[in-house]
């Protein structure tokens, strides 16, 4: 049998050999040869409604499964529509490979129909990208692209393939061992001396806090982090993307840090004498004012990307390497110890949590997002994959849905991409078909990509969608409330009847306006075989507390005023 293949066939043969069984895409002129060949390969193609959706789906697929997500689109507008999804994956270190068609190589540079310099456009927002115009290069480039996307600090890789390269034929030579990347070093490791200095700092510290970031999940270091902190009695604070990296109900878990982190978490960081920053990058949303950030703390920073070390915050020990590998070596050097005075002082900062538990509050007739999210958490035992959009609901999710397992919160952290939730949830569901998947989105972000409801219907997926509908672009409104004298410019938002909208797509739709209806509606949605969209009409001008204003000192947070609706006492009516 001849081993001659067209470039289009090689694309699929390479992807299948890389273990890809699902791709998200949208056909078009320059990628048509690839689409034609696709029918002969065992790949599930999910037809999206907009190429941005394809990239978010690939991203959601990658985050839920740990595998590389693959998106495919045509040249020009198909490819440029992917830009937002690629940038999202870039800032959150999510491994995706985007394959785009390009006009024929003889037309490249001639402003041909649907021609865009996509490798140029995506250069600063990809980990690496390729323009392939020779059929022989397709297989090795796809192999390299998958490897680059997944290894080291993961990220998006784009492969732009000219139409003639797809149509030409060559002998397929698949060599999975061959990666020609002489300058690529994903496998750095710290020196012995750095290990010793880190261990000495840990063993000598009295008030340490471990800051767990997305790297804990990406490196599958959950178990090792837990071993370390249980051995040395170190409390753990998480970044937004680190949520799930440490069990929420573990006694050493503090919760989320940063702009909307609980006060005691940030206070513990400010009072710490040692920070162990693992797989996080001291983002400005986490540090507040870096000049006053954790002023008394020595800092150990472990990150696989050396460019993150000493970037935002100067640290005492900078260790470049894979977190799991570093922890394997570090664990034995760390002494078993108890840090009761420190833990009890954090416990005091925390105060009595029960009085703040919103479940203990009587029903005041108002429907609050926090209640909705907290009820979804209770009813799903904290085990669902929750995919959020960006804004107030995202912060409430982080505060009121307690994730016990890794890869169960999927959210756009670094780029803060509205419209992320619905498509990313589709990707997550396809990656984990046996898992319960919830979308939690605001009324604003949901409308950005709600056309993907049609994709859900066409693919017959079961996803539960909770729209936290407050009639505002809530987080922007909140900033206007605090920092722009309540001048609500362009934040009031008219939305369609989401329940009816869902029905138009052939899905079930529900509307919830009272707290009493939350639990039965959520339970009914879970029991339903199909996708259910629930429009939760929540309090309009509710605010996410606490909040550290951008650039302010971490301890200077805006707290919930005592008279505001969800007060920290139980006698609210």
């Amino acid at each position, binding site marked *: 049998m001849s081993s001659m293949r067209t470039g289009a066939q090689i694309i699929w043969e390479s992807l299948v050999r890389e273990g890809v069984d699902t791709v998200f895409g949208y056909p078009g002129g320059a990628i048509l040869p690839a689409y034609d060949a696709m029918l002969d390969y065992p790949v599930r193609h999910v037809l999206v409604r907009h190429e941005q959706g394809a990239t978010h789906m690939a991203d959601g697929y990658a985050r839920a499964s740990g595998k590389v997500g693959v998106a495919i689109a045509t040249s020009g507008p198909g490819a440029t529509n992917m830009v937002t999804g690629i940038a999202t994956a870039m800032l959150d270190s999510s491994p995706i490979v985007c394959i785009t068609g390009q006009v024929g190589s003889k037309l490249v540079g001639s402003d041909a129909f649907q021609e865009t310099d996509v490798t140029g456009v995506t250069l600063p927002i990809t*980990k690496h990208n390729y323009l392939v115009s020779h059929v022989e290069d397709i297989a090795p480039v796809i192999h390299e692209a998958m490897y680059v996307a997944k290894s080291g600090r993961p990220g998006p890789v784009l492969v732009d393939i000219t139409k003639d390269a797809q149509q030409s034929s060559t002998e397929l030579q698949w060599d999975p061992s061959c990666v020609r990347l002489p300058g690529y070093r994903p496998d750095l490791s710290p020196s012995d001396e750095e290990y010793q200095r880190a261990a000495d700092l840990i063993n000598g510290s009295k008030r340490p806090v471990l800051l767990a970031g997305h790297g804990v999940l990406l490196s599958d270091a959950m178990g090792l982090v837990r071993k370390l902190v249980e051995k040395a009695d170190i409390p753990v604070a998480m970044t937004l993307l680190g949520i799930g990296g440490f069990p929420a109900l573990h006694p050493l878990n503090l919760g989320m840090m940063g702009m909307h982190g609980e006060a005691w978490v940030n206070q513990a960081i400010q009072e710490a004498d040692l920070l162990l920053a693992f797989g996080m990058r001291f983002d400005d949303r986490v540090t507040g004012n870096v000049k006053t950030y954790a002023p008394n703390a020595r800092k150990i920073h472990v990150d696989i*990307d050396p460019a993150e070390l000493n970037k935002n915050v100067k640290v005492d020990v900078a260790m470049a390497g894979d977190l799991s590998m570093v922890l394997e070596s570090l664990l034995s050097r760390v002494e078993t110890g108890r840090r009761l005075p420190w833990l009890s002082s954090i416990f005091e900062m925390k105060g009595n949590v029960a009085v703040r538990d919103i479940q203990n509050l009587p029903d005041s007739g108002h429907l609050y997002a926090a209640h909705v999210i907290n009820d979804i958490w209770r009813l799903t035992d904290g085990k669902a994959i929750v995919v959020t959009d960006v804004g107030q609901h995202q912060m409430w999710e982080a505060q009121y849905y307690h994730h016990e397992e890794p890869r169960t919160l999927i959210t756009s952290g670094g780029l803060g991409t509205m419209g992320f939730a619905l498509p990313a949830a589709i990707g997550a569901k396809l990656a984990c078909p046996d898992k319960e998947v919830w979308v939690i989105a605001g009324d604003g972000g949901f409308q950005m990509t709600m056309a993907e409801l049609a994709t859900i219907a066409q693919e017959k997926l079961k996803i539960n969608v909770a729209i936290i509908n407050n009639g505002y672009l809530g987080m922007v409104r909140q900033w206007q409330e605090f920092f722009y004298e309540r001048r609500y410019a362009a934040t009031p938002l008219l939305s369609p009847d989401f329940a009816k909208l869902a029905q138009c797509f052939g899905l079930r739709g529900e509307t919830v306006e009272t707290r009493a209806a939350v639990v039965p509606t959520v339970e009914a949605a879970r029991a339903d075989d199909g996708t259910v969209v629930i429009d939760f009409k929540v309090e309009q001008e509710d605010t996410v507390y606490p909040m550290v204003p951008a650039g302010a000192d971490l301890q200077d947070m805006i707290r919930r005023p005592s008279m505001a609706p969800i007060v920290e006492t139980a006698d609210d009516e």
Partner: protein
Amino acid sequence: MVEYSPMRHTFVVYVEDKPGVLNRIASLFRRRAFNIESLTVGHTETAGVSRMTILVESDTHGARRLEANLYKLVNVLRVHDITSGPAVYRELAMIKVSTESADTRTHVMQLVDVFRARVVDVAPVSVIIETTGTEDKIDGLLEVLRPYGILELVRTGRVGMVRGSESVMVEPPEPPRSRSTTPTDDESVSYSV
């Protein structure tokens, strides 16, 4: 606190000789808000490897960040900040100077001798001077030539090499992938979109 130490850093950067690599480097400097003072690029002793000398204004903290970010580019093979050690720096300049009279030409030729530069072209009313040296030397020559009227100037930007036998070794890159067929001439291929 990172202390502020304004300084110029010279990087020697080995990169794979592939299309678009210069763009990736330039894009990185732009994106991370570093200002390139000069950038030169050319072949090296190893086929398939290009060498850049990049002069950039940055404090030490910024230079470390830049080095780390350069390494993130997949096509970058080796980054060497040669600022602190002993190194030889050179720049080449060609200067077209107005010589309206025979008299001025003689004066200009004398200056050229003093600066150990060379005249590489003589026209009735102008000469082209070629000079190689440090930026300071070239600046000095330009200063004394300026009164005669500089008609045109081109400078290559700095190249640099570390002194002594130490060499910034680079693994030779893999040979380029063989291309057995010439796909673009394939009759069956259509170029319409």
